[in-house]
């Protein structure tokens, strides 16, 4: 089954390869040649490469620091902080981006307060390569955070204590012991951030277009939408470039992660490193960060949802619940979409949660080459722009496959999601396996447990926190997903992303904001429900538990 899933994950990519090499069924490398000889391609390639690298560094820095501080530092209200950092993923990225544009723009209320607002007419500071990089880095920091968090939780306390006994101060302990030990997870998180960044379309579109800063995804989208699908083979060729970047990232990751043996023996215990006089700084930084990246966009979202028309200031006179009423009672699509997206996201998360464990088990503990290759290839589906993956899915499923008609059902979206988000689920788990002492597995073998039982009773519970983090990543990402479902939805099978996007396209920003706010509420509710359901598990599974 795991192998099947891997195949699902790489099949679209293969289909695209075929399209790139054989446009309309005729062999010819013309498209590839055209793309490679176009200077625009290389400009975008260069932009993508270095923006992604820089953004990855920012994500690593922010996400890593967040994870370390809340996992090891003696901060108050740690669970709330973790919950907040996880929530970052559910704010749709365009909302965050618009919020930042407003915050740093000429009309910024905050900046005006300090007299720092740029003069009207001046170039918006975010409409720049730096702006794109910064926002992408911010946006993907939770990926690093969520991959790192489970790894920090299984760290045996005596390794840290040994370092402190050796006279190392907390910062040094972190640098020389903690970080190297959780390196696989940190690297996995950063690789996820890298691959997400090269595949990200929303932010480069919002900021890059006005900044005249083309990246590969925007280039692909422009080609597709501007010159029509006649350029499918060119798009496939461009997608291959993305694939090359992603694969490069993954190979570097594999190399880095494989270099060191970080299997820890011994039992995990909760660890605290006193922050000393840095404690107030860390508290302020953590909450300030949450306020800026979570609270501010959410408030902006709410403010928009509560007025009748976009751009009206929110006040007693303008406040209205009309948008919520419309979403809840008048728009059947919205209700359907919430349910469909919930179902899709939950199904994708659950399936991938279960599949990621055996896949990573084989790829890491058993060192199966084939499995590693499949995993690597599956990475591409995540790096491809959603549109491209959706096109590939259409190409494959437009006719019944194995007697099954998936086209125009939720099934095709689910499969596309499985393909696209496989990596999100698999990464943290693989990293967790890299860190585990395999004698625990041997002890189970010795007890006479066969493979399935071992995975279910030993491997799965041991990596459950990592798998849960992965499942959460999938769930939250899939819940708001737009670009894949934009082409794959069908009447009666809308997704949230599609409905929100349609509303925005129609200029109905306020209704869209109301729907997005409801989404946030629904997600928080679900996360609470998940907490409730898993509260009796032996090992706390969700990142913000324990």
């Amino acid at each position, binding site marked *: 089954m795991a192998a099947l899933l891997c195949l699902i994950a790489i099949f679209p990519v293969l289909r695209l390869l075929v399209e790139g090499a054989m446009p309309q069924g005729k062999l010819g490398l013309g498209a590839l040649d055209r793309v490679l000889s176009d200077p625009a391609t290389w400009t975008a390639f260069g932009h993508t490469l270095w923006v992604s690298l820089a953004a990855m560094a920012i994500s690593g820095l922010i996400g890593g620091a967040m994870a370390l501080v809340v996992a090891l530092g003696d901060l108050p209200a740690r669970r709330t902080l973790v919950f907040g950092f996880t929530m970052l993923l559910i704010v749709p990225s365009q909302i965050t981006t618009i919020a930042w544009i407003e915050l740093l723009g000429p009309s910024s209320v905050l900046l005006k307060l300090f007299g720092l607002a740029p003069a009207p007419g001046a170039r918006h500071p975010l409409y720049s390569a730096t702006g794109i990089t910064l926002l992408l880095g911010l946006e993907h920091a939770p990926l690093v955070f969520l991959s790192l968090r489970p790894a920090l939780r299984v760290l*045996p*306390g*005596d*390794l840290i*204590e*040994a*370092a*402190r*006994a*050796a*006279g*190392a*101060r*907390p910062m*040094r302990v972190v640098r*020389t*012991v903690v970080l*190297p*030990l959780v*390196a696989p997870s940190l690297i996995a998180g950063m690789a996820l951030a890298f691959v997400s960044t090269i595949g990200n379309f929303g932010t480069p579109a919002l900021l890059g277009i006005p900044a005249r800063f083309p990246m590969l995804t925007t280039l692909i989208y422009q080609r597709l939408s501007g010159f029509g699908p006649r350029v499918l083979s060119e798009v496939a060729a461009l997608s291959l470039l993305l694939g090359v970047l992603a694969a490069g990232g993954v190979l570097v990751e594999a190399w880095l992660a494989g270099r*060191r*043996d*970080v*299997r*820890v*023996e*011994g039992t995990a215990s909760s660890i605290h490193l*006193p922050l000393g006089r840095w404690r107030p700084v860390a508290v302020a930084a953590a909450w300030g960060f949450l306020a800026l990246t979570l609270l501010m966009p959410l408030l902006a979202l709410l403010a928009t949802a509560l007025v009748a028309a976009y751009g009206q200031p929110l006040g007693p006179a303008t406040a209205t619940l009309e948008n919520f009423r419309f979403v809840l009672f008048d728009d059947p699509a919205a209700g359907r979409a919430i349910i469909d997206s919930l179902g899709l996201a939950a199904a994708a998360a659950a399936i991938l949660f279960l599949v990621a464990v055996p896949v990573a088990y084989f790829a890491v503990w058993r060192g199966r080459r084939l499995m590693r290759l499949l995993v690597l290839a599956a990475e591409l589906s995540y790096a491809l722009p959603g549109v491209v993956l959706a096109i590939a899915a259409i190409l494959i499923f437009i006719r019944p496959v194995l007697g099954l008609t998936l086209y125009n059902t939720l099934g095709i979206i689910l499969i596309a999601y499985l393909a696209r988000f496989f990596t999100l689920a698999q990464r943290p788990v693989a990293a967790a396996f890299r860190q585990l002492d395999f004698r625990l597995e041997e002890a189970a073998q010795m007890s006479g447990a066969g493979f399935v039982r071992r995975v279910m009773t030993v491997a799965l519970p041991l990596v459950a926190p990592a798998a849960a983090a992965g499942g959460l990543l999938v769930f939250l990402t899939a819940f708001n997903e737009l670009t894949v479902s934009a082409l794959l939805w069908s009447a009666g099978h809308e997704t949230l992303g599609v409905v929100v996007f349609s509303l925005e396209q129609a200029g109905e920003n306020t209704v869209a904001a109301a729907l997005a706010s409801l989404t946030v509420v629904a997600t928080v509710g679900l996360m609470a429900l998940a907490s409730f359901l898993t509260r009796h598990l032996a090992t706390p599974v969700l990142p913000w538990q324990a």
Partner: protein
Amino acid sequence: MAGLILRTVTKRFADAAAPAVDAVSLDVAHGEFLAILGPSGCGKTTLLRLVAGFERPGAGEIRLGDRLVADGRTHVPPEDRHVGIVFQSYALWPHMTVGENVGYPLRTRGVRGAEYRSRVAAALDVVGLGSAVDRRPASLSGGQRQRVALARCLAMAPDLVLLDEPLANLDVHLKASLLDEFQEFRARTGATMLYITHDQSEAMALADRIAVMNQGRVEQVAAPETLYHAPATAFVADFIGRGGVVAATVPQRADQGRALIEIAGHRAFVRAVPEQAAGRALVCLRPEDLALADDGLPARCRRARYQGGEWLVDVTVEGQEGRPLQLLAKPGTVPEPGTPVRVRISDGWVIPG
């Protein structure tokens, strides 16, 4: 300077019924070698962790030299205590080579270059792993890992060394040579040492004094010979050395440290505290105090085990089947299990109180 003082130190884990460490007071002199013995789970490791600063005492205070390092309010972090520790679980860093593991405490103290290399090499040579400097912990055997942990602790030359069963996974010979090494290290640096072990002969051979713990409390702290010959409680008598404890009557008050005892109708003179009163008492009888003989205490042979050279024979006195005594017998003189024997008592100790 680096003596150690504990005053009614108590530690209770959140979900535990009884405290793991219960009102322990100890005075360890500067340069002293104190061994800690006690059954599994009695709180030895917890005590060490309190001293190192990894746990905070629930009550009581800890002083290192003249520094108060822990009480209700104060808590000096471990990195500022300059205390070396060898963990029961080794706690080697899997991502570092053996050399890097050992050199880590040196680096944190800014030792670099040639001195760094030579000190790492020296520490590894001591434990016989000079050639393993570039290997990774994962590729080492259990005993080799233990030795690396030891080298790491010695390399940092701490004032106070805490050792948690540092030789448990080593064979006798390596053990012996490392014990020599500890003595040498101590002589060189004057460090104070707290040493947890399950091997009594190790503790006897090395320690200036031994603390015997039981259920979180310290039962006795004394020099090895005292502990062996004059245990303060029945638990200590039972726990230290071989032999056993039997109930006896002391017909009259002890005289000049000697008391008459009567067991199962048989009488003998043994040692006692000068103020030992008459009455019922427990008596500690060691194997070397006992011998099979033609007359003496009537007993019954329970079983015999070969010990390399000699046989260890378990006998019980009638009416005290739950309290076996042990004695040594040469090969050839070992009685069959079940047969009645006579045991001569040449010495013994009345457990006070």
